[in-house]
């Protein structure tokens, strides 16, 4: 044992104190787990919600319309009341397969924490200009939308005046409105796909209401600026997302906001030997939000990128409860039905399910891979269709879910896999 390096033991260690970690912690505590440690790298709990000062949070979960910080505060208050231990300004730098967590902070230095269970709730990071390889100058004035949001909402400082947004994901839409409200001029939102990748309500409330044009089937192929950004070149793309020669247009601006994708932040998960899905970028889990490593659970944006914090909370409660059950000696499941995304489905979470013990229902969340109008969500147990739900609109930017009730499962017990797909009739 090293002299000076602090060693501790906890039944449950939760990595991340955003909406996922908070809900998971509270759920575990309510199930009787007392030895909980929540590790958060920022100096306050709340995660990304702290900078999401717009409202629209809690419509489902609390039946109220709250801002991000307000939504987070409800959980933080409950966590405090329940007396759950947290370490703030603490960065986890390693997790082993044996569930040993290494963290560091200024007060205590290096912490080595032996955990019986771990909940991964680290959230996600933003895709960068470098990752999508936009050519051009590397001047100042290019930000991911979330990073710009932090400057504006937390620091009270404007990244720039004349703004172009690439990507119609929710963060880009929210920031288009935000910059406008602070006196910036948002010239356009460019979106590669023929549809928005964000929530429909954000298109209306952030762009339409402010007269900000959105140009679908467009992308940016050049960036000009010696020291600070001076302009970008936008171009139309064809059905293969390739630039169409001759459609280039130069737009003068000093700020480019990128909202081109979120990537679950699973670097630590990899170190712990957790199996990741190449489609979601997050862990492969069962209906308990348990990964392939017994006793390691995952929830929230680190599992798959959500649209609504409300769904994160629900999902994370499952993880918290499951961790509690694990600690109470529940046996690790080994036999699974595969949950398969068929035609029209991009991914499902969970990717496998054991349905021996189902309380009321199990929920499968999924995203479609295209826009579908007047179609059906169909669920098959092997070849037998057991659900056929009509939906007016299905879009990749809006996560969907279906519930399999205990009855439904009970009536159709002998099957191998669950298939979800989108059907025309």
């Amino acid at each position: 044992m090293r002299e000076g390096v602090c060693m501790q033991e906890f039944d449950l260690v939760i990595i991340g104190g955003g909406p996922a970690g908070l809900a998971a912690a509270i759920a575990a505590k309510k199930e009787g787990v007392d030895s909980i440690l929540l590790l958060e790298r920022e100096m306050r709990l709340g995660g990304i919600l702290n900078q999401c000062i717009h409202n629209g949070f809690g419509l489902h979960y609390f039946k109220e319309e709250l801002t991000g910080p307000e939504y987070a505060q409800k959980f933080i208050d409950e966590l405090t009341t329940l007396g759950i231990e947290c370490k703030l300004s603490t960065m986890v730098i390693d997790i082993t397969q044996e569930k040993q967590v290494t963290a560091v902070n200024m007060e205590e230095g290096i912490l080595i924490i032996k955990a019986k269970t771990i909940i991964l709730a680290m959230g996600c990071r933003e895709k960068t200009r470098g990752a999508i390889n936009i050519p051009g100058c590397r001047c100042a004035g290019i930000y991911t939308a979330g990073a710009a949001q932090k400057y504006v909402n937390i620091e009270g400082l404007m990244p720039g005046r004349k703004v172009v947004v690439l990507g119609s994901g929710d963060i880009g839409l929210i920031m288009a409105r935000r910059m406008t409200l602070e006196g910036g001029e948002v010239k356009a939102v460019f979106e590669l796909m023929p549809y928005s990748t964000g929530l429909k309500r954000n298109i209306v409330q952030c762009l339409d209401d402010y007269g900000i044009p959105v140009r679908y089937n467009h992308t940016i192929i050049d960036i000009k600026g010696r020291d600070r950004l001076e302009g970008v070149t936008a171009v139309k793309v064809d059905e293969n997302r390739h630039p169409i020669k001759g459609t280039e247009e130069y737009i003068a601006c000093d700020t480019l906001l990128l909202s081109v994708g979120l990537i679950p932040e699973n670097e630590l998960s990899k170190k712990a030997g957790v199996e990741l899905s190449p489609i979601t970028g997050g862990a492969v889990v069962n209906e308990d939000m348990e990964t392939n490593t017994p006793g390691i659970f995952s929830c929230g944006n680190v599992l798959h990128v959500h649209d609504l914090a409300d769904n994160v909370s629900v999902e994370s409660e499952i993880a918290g409860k499951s961790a509690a059950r694990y600690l109470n000696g529940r046996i690790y499941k080994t036999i699974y039905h595969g949950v398969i995304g068929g035609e029209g489905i991009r991914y499902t979470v969970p990717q496998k399910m054991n349905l021996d013990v189902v309380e009321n229902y199990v929920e499968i969340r999924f995203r479609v891979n295209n826009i579908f109008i007047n179609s059906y969500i169909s669920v098959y147990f092997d070849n037998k269709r057991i659900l056929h739900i009509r939906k007016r609109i299905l879009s990749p930017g809006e996560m969907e879910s279906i519930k399999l009730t205990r009855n439904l499962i009970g009536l159709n017990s002998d099957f191998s896999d669950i298939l979800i797909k989108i059907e025309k009739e």
Partner: protein
Amino acid sequence: MYNVIIIGAGIVGSSIARELSKYDLKVCILEKQVDVAMGTTKANSAIVHAGFDAKPNTIKAKLNVMGNSMFDLLSEELDFPFKRNGSLVLCFHENDMDKLLLLKEQGEKNGVPNLEIISGKALCDMEPNISQNAVAALYAPTGGIVCPYEMTLALSENAYENGVEFFFENKVIDISAIDNKYKVITNKDEYLGEVIINAAGIYSDEINNMISSESLKIIPRRGEYCVFDKSVGNMISKTIFQLPSKLGKGVLVTPTVDGNLLVGPNAVNQDDKEDFATTLEGLENILKTASESIKYMPMNLIINSFSGLRARTEKDDFIISEVKDAIGFINVVGIESPGLTSAPAIAKVVCDMVIKKIPTEIKNNFNPIRKGILKFREMPLDQLQVKIEEDPRYGNIVCRCETISEGEIIDAIHRPLGAKTLDGVKFRTRAGMGRCQSGFCASRILDILARELRKDQLEITKFGRESRILTCKNKELI
């Protein structure tokens, strides 16, 4: 009055400065940017070439091999990362085997040690991830990889510690001969020097032409690169070249000394010396060409791309000489590849030229050792614990992707020739070079810079000049 004025604080200027600082000479460097290494030095392949590529009996060949051999001692004294990982030049056709053999011969003429041709199973075992189409390769064990800007910082800091003065944001606008001295006028001040060393990179032609009637012309030749995530940094262990063409060494694939994978460069002439943009064609080109060397190109793991400008002259060799019609004015011009490798040797050559002109002695208090910034990510946990107890800021991780602590960033700002910009912190610590490309840490680094330099957050720039990160306070635009 200075004995020596060096124009340009790139790898060449800094190497010369450090070498000269061993002597009892009054030396200064004039650098137009806000920091060292901001030109070609920070945007190249970062390879310490073995030396088989240079034409025999050229200055390039001689200084390449000489310089290469100096890296072990230098990297130890100055604490910058250097690794002799070895180079492989791949040959894809039996018909080209003679070209490979010629390259080997050329290397041997140049004095490159231990060259051998490897093929078949031996090649496969050495590098399992190179293309199946490679029939053979020239293996040069003395090839290496280095961090060119960290090396430049190390040289500069050591030169500074040993008495060299650095003047940043001083752009030379005129040089005139007065008596047997030179008056160098910058946008900020005037300097007098006995000997002037022109190490101004892609602007060295303009500097030369201020004083000499024998004008020089630099042709900037752009090279573009893609950097990949560290998770594929160990796809290969050696630096993989393809057989060279007329345009140069061609597109390489290499691990970097920091653990990333680097692909590039192309070679495209351009006029604009201020244009460091990458291009769609250029990036597509290097990725396509490099794909021929390795089994697969992990396209979804690109984290960044950049371009650098080589300072080419028509001469195709280094120009290291005193100007005929300007005694005491030494040109170090056209230092394109293998310039980085040759830099320690160039420094020795130039230093010898200087001390022939100015009688002087070696300082008895010259300190060859420079300690770099402590790397949290490389320290064992118990040592880290001690360090954090001593200075808690080492326990505050600012750059999550690269695991860089606040303590390191503060060291970067306050050490000699400390960082003043976001890029300055980035190049000294690697904060911002990870997969999120400073998405998480930029605002934190900005705050630390503002606090430590006692500046307003709005004043902090990415790399000096007008590259401000923030514009104004909220609501000021309404």
